[in-house]
């Protein structure tokens, strides 16, 4: 609040920090609502249930991956490996589909957790920077997925197909799973000791170490959770596509997830996790892309507008984040 005294022109000086705080807390909700309103008014067939369902199903993998990413970023880390972990999970799923779809899914999720464990061990116990540790995983794990399953494989397992395309009360199962995961992560962050430790470590690691928090173990767990969630996202995406495609599944999803997290107001400097806003961030980017496409703006425009939104969001939230 240093601006209160240092700036001239009374009212603006008092207003400004409040505006920043408001934008940081509610900006992403306001943006989503504005876009929704715009679409209801100007986009034909926007309110059709089918359209809604498609948008939600498409954004599901990004939402699930973003939940893990938010935890990692909360510790002042970053996880670039999530897309490759999705691909690994897809590969493992079709490899073990012969044993039934549930065992295959379990193996895939364990595989993702192990990948996360490798990254987490490098970060927590060796002290490698998160961006490099997970960059090594990004390169290596995608390769591993391609070695395991060299080409696109279609499958006809009814259980897995049902997981990907069935609905309960009109809501796709995978959307329900994403919603449940959101609630779980929200609970973990807000109500558990572990959640508080994650935020504390991101806020001030050396202070956390001095006060006796199990810093290394918490860091390790965070990367394991990120890998686990990414693997789940990979399994669900595979189930929906009814095919395993290790070459292109999850490509660049790390960038979408990081975008969702920072647009949601979680600072890259750690120490604060905003779970619901992260989900809103993912929805905002999806809605934005859909809106531009529906109004016949080409993909090039979508990407440029997304770039501007990212910058604006981070600029608006940087005040509190940098402190």
């Amino acid at each position, binding site marked *: 609040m240093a601006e209160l005294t240092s700036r001239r022109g009374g009212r603006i000086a008092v207003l400004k920090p409040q505006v920043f705080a408001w934008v940081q807390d509610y900006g992403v909700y306001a943006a989503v609502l504005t876009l929704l309103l715009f679409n209801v008014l100007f986009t034909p067939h926007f309110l059709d249930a089918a359209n809604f369902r498609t948008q939600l199903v498409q954004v599901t993998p990004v939402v699930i991956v973003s939940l893990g990413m938010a935890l990692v970023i909360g510790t002042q880390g*970053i996880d*670039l490996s999530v897309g490759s972990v999705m691909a690994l999970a897809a590969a493992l799923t079709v490899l073990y589909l012969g044993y039934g779809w549930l065992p295959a899914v379990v193996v895939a999720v364990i595989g993702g957790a192990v990948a996360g464990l*490798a990254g987490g061990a*490098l970060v927590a116990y*060796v*002290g*490698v*920077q998160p*961006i*490099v*540790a997970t*960059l*090594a*995983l*990004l*390169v*290596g*794990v*995608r*390769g*591993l*997925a*391609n*070695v395991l399953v*060299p080409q696109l494989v279609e499958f006809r397992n009814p259980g897995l197909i049902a997981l990907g395309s069935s609905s309960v009360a009109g809501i796709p199962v995978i959307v329900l799973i994403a919603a449940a995961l959101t609630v779980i992560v929200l609970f973990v962050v807000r109500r558990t000791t572990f959640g508080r430790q994650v935020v504390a470590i991101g806020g001030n690691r050396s202070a956390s170490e001095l006060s006796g928090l199990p810093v290394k173990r918490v860091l390790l767990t965070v990367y394991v959770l990120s890998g686990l969630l990414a693997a789940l996202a990979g399994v669900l995406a595979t189930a929906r596509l009814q095919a395993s495609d290790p070459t292109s599944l999850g*490509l660049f999803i790390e*960038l979408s997830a*990081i*975008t969702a997290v*920072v647009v949601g107001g979680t600072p*890259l*400097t750690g120490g604060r996790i905003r779970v619901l806003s992260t989900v809103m961030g993912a929805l905002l980017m999806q809605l934005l892309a859909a809106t531009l496409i529906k109004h016949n703006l*080409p*993909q*090039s*425009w*979508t*990407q*440029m507008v*997304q*770039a*501007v939104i*990212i*910058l604006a969001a*981070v*600029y608006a939230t*940087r005040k509190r984040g*940098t402190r």
Partner: protein
Amino acid sequence: MNREQTSRLLQQHGAVMVLALLVIVGSLAFESFATPANAASVVVSSSFLAIIAIGMTFVIISGGIDLSVGSLFVLGGVLAAYGSPYGMLVALLLPLAVCGVVGLLQGLVIARTGMAPFIVTLAGLLGVRGLMLAISDEGATTYLVKDRAFAALGQGELLGLSHPVYITGALALLAMVLLQRTGFGQNVYAIGGNEQAAALMGVPVARTKVLVYVMSGLLAGLAGALNAARLSSGVTILGIGLELDAIAAVVIGGTLLTGGAGGITGSVAGVLLLGVIQSLINQVGSLTSAFQQVVSGVFLALVVVAQRLLSKAQRLT
């Protein structure tokens, strides 16, 4: 030689040593590895990544990161091909001007607002790819390089090596001089080491940062232009993930991502290492490019672990 000196030497020149080791092992294991043709092909295909890695080295030593270089590489190529009907000068200057301006904008935002380079250049990655798509009619149009002289810049040969190799070599030398022998280079190291201390000592922090991102943008654009000259067209689907290759090469070369330490020689060696690994895997024949990714990933992990252990050893002594 004491332990501290050993570990410092290993960290700074480890990549060169491992490169030499791999080349020796490869020559002994495969007859077709140590041939001039194979060596030339590794060096030529590495030269474009090397140009990008040189710019990235400056950025990383200053404590930043540049994720936009892959997109700038493609944009540079498309613009070069787009401009090539108007002659060699336009084919070269158009990509350099646009990519330089993108670097300038990113640098200004990073230096003036204090936003994280990771996020600013991530937005750059997206925005520049959008710009490239807009110029190439959403990727539908591939511009061909019409100008002979410009194509010769990428395809011509001298003493069995194509021109991009010499250009890369010259740029690397220039960058080494700039980094090691000029005030600007000193400032880059100082900012990466401790930005606040550097500012207190009167280092022009903002200006140096801006310049570093301008350089990175220019070099990525130049690499794209040269690549377009070599391929005779501005291919729109290249460059995906190139920023990560460049960062990996720089890190393998011993430059610390925390900033303040590193050098050009290491980065060039890092690029060549990645190229040699690929070549060795090609020699085995039965292994796929997917396997090469696994090896590169494991290799990168081993290098950063070794770096970490070595830098711990330095601090203890």
